[in-house]
Structure formats: structure tokens, C-alpha cells
């Protein structure tokens, strides 16, 4: 939409996972860090809990979240973020 608040799922890739966490564990340090970073970026009062789709925390570092284009841009310029890109749809071959 014109005011750019339309959200879509973006992948925020943050490279190497320094603190691999067991999938059974609860809110791991990596996950907490993803939520904290996301909360700092959200500017419409919603919380990371509302937007987060995945927190990648076992062997890769990053997360997937529903973001606006403006939030995407803010995250893309953040230290520790390698790339922020729209989650593509792939097909079976």
C-alpha cells in the first residue's frame, strides 16, 4: 500500500550461530537477541512476538518476520545483519 505499512515475510540473515541452542529448549539466548533486535525496529507499537515467524538458532543465525519495507531497510543497515530479503516461493522440481 502506498504508505508502506504493508507487511510481508522477510528473512533476516545474520550468518554464523555463536550460541547454537537445542530445539527443545525454551526461549534461547539467540531467540531473545532476535526479539530484542526486532523490537527495536518496530515502529507501530506491535511486538516482535506478533511479527516473528521463525528464529533460526540451532546452526544458522537469523530470523523470519513480517516486516514493512521501512522496517526492512532499518534492519538491513544494522551491524551483524548480512542481508534482509523477501522470502521467495519455490517450486518442487
Amino acid at each position, binding site marked *: 500500500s502506498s504508505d508502506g505499512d504493508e507487511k510481508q*515475510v522477510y528473512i533476516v540473515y545474520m550468518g554464523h550461530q555463536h550460541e547454537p541452542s537445542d530445539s527443545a529448549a525454551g526461549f534461547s539466548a539467540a531467540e531473545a537477541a532476535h526479539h530484542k533486535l526486532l523490537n527495536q525496529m518496530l515502529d507501530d507499537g506491535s511486538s516482535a512476538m506478533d511479527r516473528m515467524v521463525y528464529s533460526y*538458532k540451532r546452526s544458522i543465525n537469523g530470523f523470519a518476520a513480517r516486516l514493512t519495507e521501512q522496517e526492512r531497510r532499518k534492519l538491513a543497515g544494522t551491524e551483524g545483519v*548480512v542481508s534482509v530479503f523477501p*522470502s521467495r516461493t519455490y517450486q518442487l522440481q
Partner: protein
Amino acid sequence: TTRSWDFLGFPRNARRSLPTEGEVIVGMLDTGVWPDSPSFSDAGLGPPPGRWKGACLNFTCNNKIIGARAYRQGRAGLSPVDTAGHGSHTASTVAGRVVEGVGLAGVAAGSARGAVPGARLAIYKVCWDDFCAGEDILAAFDDAIADGVDVISFSIGGKLPAPYFEDAAAIGSFHAMRCGVLTSASAGNSALTGGRVGNVAPWMLSVAASSTDRRLVAKLVLGDGKTIVGASVNIFPKLEKAPLALPINGSCQPDSLARQSYRGKILFCPRGSNGTGPLQAGAAGTVIVNAEPDVAFVFPLPAVTIAEDQFTEILAYVNRTRTDPVGSIHSTEANFNSEAPIVASFSSRGPNLISPGILKPDLSAPGIAILAAWTPLSPVSGNLRDNRFAAYNVISGTSMACPHATGAAAYVKSFHPGWSPAMIMSALITTATPMDPARNPGGGELVYGAGQLSPARARDPGLVYDAREDDYVRMLCAEGYNATQLRVVTGSDGTACPAAGAAAADDLNYPTMAHHAAPGLNFTVRFPRTVTNVGAPGRSVYTARIVSSGPYIRVAVAPRRLAFSRPLQKLSFTVTVSGALPAGNEFVSAAVVWSDGVRQVRSPIIVHTVD
């Protein structure tokens, strides 16, 4: 699969390392699996390897399927059971048990088996019917790597590649590689729709689809006795002398056939029809003029696919016959195809649109009319109006080729558990059987990579081209990624980039060599390479032979003799290619073949001016 492994020279009694084959765990990112298929029986298999950290969520595992997870936008409680069939098909191609006497209503019958019947499977359901989201794929890679899989099979992709760190599969497979896990991926099915190889990361294997010597065909016999043979998996009984009809406005799409009746007729359809329209219009059968006459499809009604020139012959009959034109569609039979292997018309070609100096696809494997396990939850034609279900089905695609390579990688891994992903990839590539450019026109290695997979030879390749994370980082530097980004990717402060221009992407120690030249301009390109001796335990001497098939280039190798004194010793050489290709859209192939008199280590070279 009932024919392809034998066609690859990989018989049921191939030499196996059974104790370690049971230690190999293959992760399948796909549509899940049907656990009750006989292909996934765990009879005789011991418990999973002790190192395994996977989980069986909403799924009953056994000692064959030792892990199963499902992903859909973060939701919990999803079932990894296969509702589409694709995932069961690929998983059984990789590691299916030997199941005697199976086929699709007798078609393609035989003993179905995977490459590594003793290996374990871990299921990561990331596709739902035909929808696979990037965020789900990356979540599956995150788990599969941490769970402890050894090889990942990824029969998923897109029409075109994306920059490496904007592609879930390239990111996931990079982190898999860092943990010693090779990812084998489909090259893509977009050759006829303007696509190029979709999975192009140099740390993943990209597999094109080719034919086997078993061709599934059906006959259309016209009223004047003329027989037209076309690709088809037609398991319906013979359709006898039905009237021929053309769709009134030339289309067979359901809405354009609506309100017309073709009851009891054979309807001729243009390419792109999948039989749904004719089925709904009450047709007794359909003949589809197809851009892919090499591919046999399962249709929801009696059907044959033919090429354009065959359609012309049929029209000639229709125009000259005095009586109403009729035809009969016979059930499918298997013909011997002496031309095979030929790359499928749909199989996405190179060049690598992200890194033109890295040849993709890497190799070819059977991907046409492959019989393998299926799910009873999906009709054999995939058409929801079709009420035919089966335990084994015949489908085609680079999705089917990929698991052949995955299975071969798992087979190599079972003999060499300590090999890196790049070493396994190299073994598969340098031992591939060269394919015939005359029968596979349009690009030489850009069409079929190093050639057809040869699992038996890959077990003992002699020399391998190894590459580790630092090698890929240097290549990424040459591709324009900066040291800051790459330090985040590797998590290592020591990650640095050489001075600008000091390295090129094709400096990567890759088993093949590709160069994108400018038309009409002279070029000289050097490929520094290092090979690791994994062949004979004692001393061994390899000498290089240059195979060049084109007038426009000169290939030199220095040194031409490598004398190894111990296993795992590394020695280096440089291949220099120079010349000029006169026009655009051209290619010239060559190869460097190292041999110790027993083993052949073949590295194809391709120079092209394809934009």
C-alpha cells in the same frame, strides 16, 4: 527405482560398506513421506546412530525414517506425512529398501530400490502440495544441520537463481557445508520457459535430468492404420476407434471447453494441457501436442503426447479421410531407447547467472519416467478428479535426478565418512560419464554438466578437488562481498578478503572449469587447481591428457605429471585456456583428464559466449 540404477552401472550387488551405510543419515527437504511404504521398512536395521539429535514430531518413526519435522510459517503441530507423493518418491530414490515386483499397473515394473537401502532418512516437510516458502526451507536447514544429517536432498528451486545470501537454499547449504554436510539440489525444470539453473551455489551440487534406456510410450493408431508413437504413462485399457475432435477455439483449458461436449471423443490439445479440460468435457481420450515429447506424463484419461510434426501427420489423415476420422489409444509399453542418456527438454541449462566462472549444472542423472514410492493420499496423475491411487508412481523432473545424485553422495560417504562435502562432490563430478554433445545440442556442459552420474566409479575417484570454507570465502570476496559481511557469515574475526582483483571466482578449486568470454575478443584464463590423492595407498603418478573439441581454443596444463608419495597428499597444477570465440551464444568444450592408468579424473572445461 526399477531401471535407473542399473542404467547408471550401479547394480543391486554393487560393492557396499554396509556397517557404515547404516551410519549415513540423509535429510530430505520435500513434501514429507508416506511411512507405510514398503520402501521405508526398517526390517533388519538397528537403532539410529548414537549421534542423532533429530526428532519425530507428529509422526511415528522407525529405524529407517529416524526423524520427521514439518514447517509452515512457524506453525506447530503439523504432520510430516506426505500428501502429495513427491517426497515419498524422492526419499525412496535416495534410500528406499529393495522392493520386488513393483510397478504402476505393470508399467515400469521391477525391483524398486534406492542407492543406499541401508541408510537412514530424516524428513523435513517444507512443501505443501506445490508451495515451498523460503522461511520454511531455512528453518529446515537450521534443524537438519543441528540434528546431524550427513547429506541433504533438495528437489526444490525456482526459475532463476538469486544472489547467494538472498537465497534460503544457498544460505542453508553454506552452513550445511561448514558442518560437513553436502546438499544435492535439482537444477530446475525451466528450460522451456526461459529459465536457467536455479540452484547455483558452488557449495551445493546441481543436478540436471536425463533419460534412461527405457522409454515409456503409447500408440495412437489412426483409422487408416497409421501408428503414431508418443510418450505417455497410459495405464487405461485400450481405447478403441474413438472419433477425433479438435477443440472449437483451439484451447483445452477447462473454461474454454465448458458447455461443449466431447463425449466419447479423442480431443487434440495444444501444449500446456494436462488433461483436466478434456476430462471435464467428457472426452474419452486426449492427444497433447507437447513441447516436451521426451517426457511421459500420467494423465487422468487415456492420453498420448506427441511432437508438432506428428500432429501434422494426423491432420493430413483427418483432411484426406472420407469417413469420420477415428483413432485408438493403446496402453503404455516400454521401448528400448538406444539414444539415452539425453538431457530432458525441460532441464534448466547454464550458464550460472550468479557466477559465470562456476559451471552449473554440475552433472546429469536420470530424471525422466522414474518409478518410485508414492503416497495413497494423492492420485497418480496428481489430478484431484482422478480416482486412481498407487503405491508406486512414474514421474519426471530434475526433482527425480537430484535424489539419484544424493543417493550416490550418500554411497560415497558410506565408504569415506571423513570426506568433506567438496570431496564427495568432486568424486561425483570427475567420474561422470561424458555425454554426447551431438545428441544433447544447445550448450555442451551447460546442458549436462560433467556428464552422467556414475556411482560405482565415484566410490574410488583417485584424486579429488577439495574446498573448505576459506576457499568459498575467497570466491565470495571476488564476487563483491566485503570482509565485514563475511566475518558475520563465518563468525570468525580472521576472515579477510585479499586485495581487490587478486582473486577471481574461477580460482575456486572446483572440479570443472568455465569461462564466459566476449565474442570475437582474444582471452587467456588461468585455472589454478589442487588435487588430493585419495586413490592407491602407495606411490602413484598421474599424467594429464588434454581433450579438446573445438578449433577456437588452446588448452595447456603445467605440470603434466603429478607424483604422489602418500595418501591425502595435495599437489597443484594450472590449466591455461586461451583463444577467441568468433560469435555470441557459442561454446567450446575441452577436458583435462588425469590418469594413473587405472582411474580417470576428468575435469571438463567450457568456454562460452552465452549471455
